[in-house]
């Protein structure tokens, strides 16, 4: 950790996070969040998903603006490639979550970051989704994340940032542990 007196600033308001932790310990119901996305099929394998509102801190919340994401498949799947494949969106979530965690933990531990770069790889055998082989799963066989971190800290301190970020990451947890997924459908009246 750095010893000079310049204040550490990774752009994370740790006091606000710690305050929220204290407040939510007293009011656990306000800690129950619900994230939402709505999507519309466009054409072929192309869909557009919009993120706008969510529930948390005991009430309805809104992003500063709605965000829209196009997902599709690449041309080698005879698709139009209007956006990343949905599985690639999972990698976006994982990289974003772990990097945010590194920044927050570094701020809390008073470590100045200069650069954090992640490369994420996921292995997938598409015999699974194509139904060629029953013993091959549809999803990722393995995910690898590599971080290059420039920070005022020792190699072990940086390794500890990355480890603590995984320990507290929602996306890492969701990818590494089973999650109950409940899908329903309603036939729209003609």
């Amino acid at each position, binding site marked *: 950790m750095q010893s000079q007196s310049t204040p550490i600033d990774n752009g994370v308001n740790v006091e606000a996070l710690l305050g929220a932790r204290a407040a939510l310990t007293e009011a656990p119901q306000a800690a129950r969040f619900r994230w939402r996305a709505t999507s519309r099929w466009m054409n072929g394998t192309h869909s557009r998903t919009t993120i706008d509102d969510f529930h948390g801190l005991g009430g309805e919340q809104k992003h500063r603006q709605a965000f829209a994401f196009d997902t599709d498949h690449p041309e080698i799947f005879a698709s139009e490639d209007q956006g990343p494949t949905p599985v690639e969106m999972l990698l976006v979530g994982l990289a974003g979550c772990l990097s945010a965690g590194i920044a927050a933990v570094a701020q809390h531990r008073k470590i100045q970051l200069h650069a954090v770069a992640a490369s994420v790889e996921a292995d997938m055998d598409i015999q699974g989704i194509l139904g060629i082989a029953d013993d091959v799963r549809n999803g990722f066989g*393995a*995910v690898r994340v590599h971080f290059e971190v420039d920070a005022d800290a020792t190699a*072990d301190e940086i*390794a*500890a940032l990355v*480890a*603590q970020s*995984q*320990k507290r990451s929602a996306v*890492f*947890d969701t*990818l*590494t*542990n*089973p999650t109950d997924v409940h899908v329903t459908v309603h036939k729209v009246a003609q």
Partner: protein
Amino acid sequence: MNASRRANAVDVVIVGGGHCGLAMSRALSQRGIGHVVLERGEVANAWRTERWDSLRLLTPNWMTRLPGQAYDGADPDGYMTSAEVAGFLSRYAATAAAPLRTATTVLGARPTGDGWWVETTQGDWQCRALVVATGAAGRPVVPAAAADVPGEVAQFSALDYRRPAQLPDGGVLIVGASATGLQLAQEIQRSGRAVTLAVGEHVRMPRLYRGRDIQWWLLAAGVLDQRLADVDDVGRVRRLPSPQLVGTPERGTLDLNVLQRGGVRVAGRLAQVRDGRALFSGSLRNACALADLKMNRLLDTFDDWALGDGMRPDVDAVEPRPAPTRLPDTATTVLDLKRHFRSVIWATGMRPDHGWLDASLRDRAGTLRHEGGVADLPGLYVLGLPFLRRRKSSFIHGAGQDVDELVGHLTAHLNQSARARSAARGIARRRISPSAYAGLSRSWPQPD
């Protein structure tokens, strides 16, 4: 409980005849305070009846000491068996002439206004202070996934387990990577059964470092004396699993590398059992990375401490750190339980058994709520829980200081309640009208 029943009266009732209860008994005797020690079996009951055969203490013999009695045998660096601990405590009880009531199970306790009513299988007791010293490991914590394990697979907790021969032949899934999980994995794998160990977050330590027992370092460097104010999250340190250690005559290290060399398969934390299949978390690498980093930080603090003392003659030169935890290239994430296992052992932690205390006194996990051993209601105390007052609180050698501090609090409480009683009697004799009580309230005892 029936208030019209007759009860024996005594100033203090201690529940539990283990090391904490006996140390408190000795402290009360020295102060001339009347008390009894209620023990469901005989002294050191859990050490006699609730431990697996091969268990030894995780602390060396020289650390096994209580106020007035220390290990005086020929093997100070060895580790006591359960039977030796029971013998040590029996000797302690006899020397102190502890007022024991053995074969006496406490069924319940309730506040009576100026004290406690304690119901037991051998009659009731009325007391002014109650000390809960029933230990930290009264009941096993078993995750909800246990209910989804197929009926053909036998299940055991660490309290049920005694020896490998008790298990069916065939594969064994051990869930939990504390001292218990690792010790059981090693001896069961050696019995010829294929063991898979489910590993979540854990605490890794070498048995010896620079020629000294790791417990020597923890004590000498002041870690075991850390107090509540020295840690930023008391709840977290109280829930820490026991470090991966074993006490053997060889003083060897027991870690995941040792187990895997012996043939044990490691998998991630058991996340769920679904359709008869065990699903293990994909976070094993990070759990091991966290434990390796934390172990190295601990050894760094030891090195810093030893250097700070100059050239210490009592430790060897700095030695290479234990190798990082090695894991297979491909992680095990799914195993069909019936196909791979004949039994599952839940080494997923222990909690105190405070179920006999009123639910309003307990927290969400069922443990008596307390601040450093002092409960919410005056006159109620607890001993021997993890990090009760300091990191060594749950160790045998940690009881002395906790008892010393809490007996002071308890004595002050008895004096205060005695003053309150005589004041109340005086009021009654002088027939002061009830309205006059208000004016006396300043001298009335206030709850702590």
